[in-house]
């Protein structure tokens, strides 16, 4: 039984699944990183992803172009994040409440919108055409290398974008003026204020970027992973991403590693379900157990931070 398991883990197809499953979490985790750096907790990721996932499909369907679908999903992600920003930053609602509202909207509002636009109830499987799905990309040369090629080639174009974005987000945060301001605002608002950096404007921009990244995560879900939109499509990935951000110390590369860990746990659960000798119920809980462990690590980090803050306060 364990031999079987070991064989499975070291198979190329398992490596491929990890990357496939990690991608949407990575988009959302990067979204969480950017918002958190500016001192805002984007707890509405789940809702933003759900809504963007729907609009990705709709735009792709209307135009018969997956590219426009992806752009549309990104734009909707920015829009929803801006609605949240107006409530939280301008009207001073608690950001957690604003985020929960967005998540609830994502859960219920999308069903209504789908019916409004298409007359369909609950899923879009019947609408799907091949043109609407993001294409798989086979990377020349790489694809011909045994094992490595099987693991790293043949993913969705969006997957490659997700991993490219790890670098781009890092550059944004550490090499540009905007990134410097985002980090300054997130760490010491007074310091930013005292040199004329607008805290509000900076946080708006950070949330917009966060929304765009979450929107891409949504597009990946409906236009590649599930091949259509359905109720509950995001299935907690927005929250898992928050855990990944925290476990990754709020850094892009850290968030990527955490996302891969969650991807590994999910892939493991998926594969073990089909095996003899494991309770499928128990196995299905693996990704969530890993999430809980991640959150505990996050909480311990926060407690340490609070303690340090208190010590400083003395």
């Amino acid at each position: 039984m364990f031999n079987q398991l070991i064989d499975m883990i070291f198979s190329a197809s398992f490596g491929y699944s990890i990357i496939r499953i990690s991608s949407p979490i990575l988009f959302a985790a990067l979204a969480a990183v950017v918002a958190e750096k500016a001192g805002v907790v984007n707890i509405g990721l789940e809702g933003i992803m759900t809504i963007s996932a729907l609009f990705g499909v709709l735009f792709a369907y209307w135009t018969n172009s997956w590219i426009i679908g992806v752009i549309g999903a990104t734009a909707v992600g920015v829009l929803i994040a801006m609605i949240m920003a107006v409530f939280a930053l301008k009207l001073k609602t608690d950001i957690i409440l604003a985020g929960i509202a967005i998540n609830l909207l994502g859960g219920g509002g999308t069903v209504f919108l789908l019916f409004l636009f298409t007359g369909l109830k609950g899923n879009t499987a019947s609408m799907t055409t091949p043109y609407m799905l993001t294409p798989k990309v086979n990377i020349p040369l790489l694809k011909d290398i045994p094992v490595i090629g099987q693991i790293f080639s043949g993913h969705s174009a969006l997957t490659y974008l997700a991993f490219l974005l790890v670098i781009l987000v890092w550059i944004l945060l550490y090499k540009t003026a905007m990134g410097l301001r985002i980090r300054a605002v997130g760490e010491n608002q007074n310091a930013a204020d005292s040199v004329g950096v607008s805290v509000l404007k900076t946080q708006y921009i950070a949330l917009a970027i966060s929304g765009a990244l979450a929107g891409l995560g949504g597009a990946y879900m409906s236009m590649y992973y599930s091949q259509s939109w359905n109720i509950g499509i995001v299935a907690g990935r927005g929250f898992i991403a928050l855990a990944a951000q925290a476990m990754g110390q709020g850094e892009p590369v850290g968030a990527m590693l955490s996302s891969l860990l969650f991807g590994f746990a999910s892939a493991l659960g998926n594969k073990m379900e089909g095996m003899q000798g494991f309770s499928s119920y128990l196995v299905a809980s693996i990704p969530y157990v890993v999430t809980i462990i991640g959150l505990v690590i996050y909480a311990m980090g926060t407690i340490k931070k609070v303690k340090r803050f208190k010590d400083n306060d003395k």
Partner: protein
Amino acid sequence: MSDNDYVVQMKGITKVYPNGIAANQGVDFNVMRGEIHALMGENGAGKSTLMKMLFGLEQPTEGEIIVNGEKVSLSSPTVAISKGIGMVHQHFMLVPSLTVAENMVLGMEPKQGNKLFINYKKAVEITEEFSKRYNLFVDPHAKVRDIPVGMKQKVEILKALVRGAKILILDEPTAVLTTQETEELFKELIHLKEQGYTLIFISHKLNEIKQITDRLTIMRGGKSMGVHETADISKEEISRLMVGRDVVLTVEKEQAQPTDVVLSVHNMEYTNEWNKKMLDKLSFDVRKGEILGIAGVEGNGQRELVDMLFNLNIPDGGSAKVNGKNILGRPQREIRDMGVTLIPEDRMTFGIAGAGTIEENLMSDRAASKKYNKGILFNLNAMHEDSDQLIKDYRVLCKSRKQQVGMLSGGNIQKVVVAREFSSDPVLIIADQPTRGIDVGATEFIRKKLVELSREGAAVLLVSADLNEVMELSDSLIIMYNGKIAAYFEDTAVLNDTIMGEYMLGLKQQSIEEIGGVIHGE
């Protein structure tokens, strides 16, 4: 002298806050080009408010500000910076995880040719250039969280200079520095002065003022007490102007008959996070039936002492006992059960829960007692009855016990705190600035109550920056300076402002034998 010699003129400045507190009343403040000008005064004298207005953080209610001969409206720090005014805050406005160079250029980042990326090399060059030009050595690549306080301050000064400041306001710059760092800072400030910069130096340390300033303005109670050439005024005269009493309110009190020691503090020590010794082998006793006053300029260890006694902090060494039992590090519930009560300095944070009702606040320390419980539910009738009685006894002006405490005036909020803290048969009352910022009527009432309770047998430790209060109420008095007892007076009748001022500002220090009188136990 013509107006042109002045780089800053503040004329008839009055600042009244929305809560009605007048922090500045008709203040004139003039600074000449190229001088180091000290702005002196005790905490609460209004000097910070005045400087906040000059830096655009606050706007005056009345009066005008003229900078370089031009009348200006300083609506924000950005405007002030554009007029060449920079401020070095006491609490640094720096981002700890960024490097020194990044902090320097934040908000005015130099870009690479493509306009997209920060030119970090340029940022480092700018930092180095300014660092060299003004003799303010900093390490551009170090993260701010890793550098010592003295260097952080230099970064703050450089930040102002790089933004074109010609007039620098320094808010108690030496408060966080060691002696060597202070000496270094002074050299740098004199260097800046020689290059034509104007410096406004907020402080209440006489030696420093004497050492580096050209002129000084003294403030007291929101008003200016005049401008002097530093060379022409003695330290004694400055101290008299700074701490002198305005109005003398007297409280009738009988001679104290102190008996047993209630609170005994022995060799208490505490060094804060900036490596500053806040409590230095502090020892004293408070006896049943007496009021022991602690006077001193704020920041000389009084707050730390009170924090230790109510377990809001833990000292590095020493002991504190109430009737022979240790109170350090014990839970507040246990300390209260020993009969210790506290009137905290910050009443809004530690004294009350602002959103709660008067009744809830009055009952908060005793709600668990048998008297107010029937089974698992509160005995609300008993609570209502006693709350109403306390409101009456302590003359809290309110519509009913159901009113939200936060909506009351400062004086009435303090009466609620006092009603709760005085009505639990206290053995020891710690009163930290009990009448700060409240009206005369409430002040008089609270002072009378304090005397009354001490004569009925409570031990009272009164910490106050209000000289009038601490001299009138205390039976004996200690003056704290630099975490130590600078003086102990068994009988406060012999005291006057001049004597107090000299000890408070560190001009004088009693011998160990003289101070030893404050220990009454064996």
